[in-house]
């Protein structure tokens, strides 16, 4: 990768944006999953004990 190339200034933000989008997507999805799983486990416990 020749960073002196005049077109290089467009490549870096494009790759950075891609990485950002995937990290954000993964974070959102997996945080939602863990929350949903926790809630379901809590409900299951309540049903057992209640």
């Amino acid at each position, binding site marked *: 990768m020749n960073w002196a190339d005049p077109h*290089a200034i467009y*490549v870096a933000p494009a790759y950075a*944006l*891609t990485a950002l989008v995937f990290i954000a*997507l*993964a974070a959102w*999805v997996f945080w939602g999953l863990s929350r*949903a799983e926790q809630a379901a486990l809590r409900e299951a416990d*309540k049903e057992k004990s209640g």
Partner: protein
Amino acid sequence: MTTAKITTKVSGLANPQQFMAASGWALPAAGAIALLLFVIGLPWGLQYSPPDYQQGESVRIMYIHVPAAWWSMGIYAALAGSSFTYLVWRHVLADVAARAMAPIGAAYAGLCLATGSLWGRPTWGAWWEWDARLTSMLVLFLTFIGYVALRAATDEDERGARLGAVLALAGAINLPIVHYSVEWWSTLHQPASILREGGSSIHPSMIGPLFTMAGAYAAAFVALTLASMRADIYRRRTRAAQARRARSAAP
């Protein structure tokens, strides 16, 4: 296969229990594959592949733009297919899948537009052009957004699911309509150079990183969709359990 066997297999897939069991291993597998392919593909595209004779270093954007374009369209096809399945067979899992896929498709379409814009500026001199490909990708993005907005505005019940399914299918018809109506005008975007008669016209050294990234995007889509679906099923279980408790508590 007899009709009875096919029906049993399909309805087996529709069983949430079986889905949870299968996705229990499929999700980590897809996630691992995605991670591996990204780790290989990103440096390969960014550093360890040759620049283009004409475009210079900006051709590297192809490795993140083209897979996003391919898979945003593939995801919409999957969304339309799930919606059709839901409308015809009423399998809850088909609706769960549709809801899960839409935001990911929107993200891929948005990424395609943004990276395409960053690629277009140095190569064509323009951030945007109203040709058939770009415009229909924009419409695809808006259709995904519209679907997500509709599902958010309707309740999480069968009515909301059916309405979403109708919208997804109507959008499927609209996409080729928009594409061809804009193509009626001249197009600036590069004509097909990958799937073309006589084989690809891109340099073989570029195929490696491109297909690696395509695989990464696909595996990421599968992993994210499975995770979203699992979350949705947990939420439905929670709601069902709460409803049961409320009913048994009522005098």
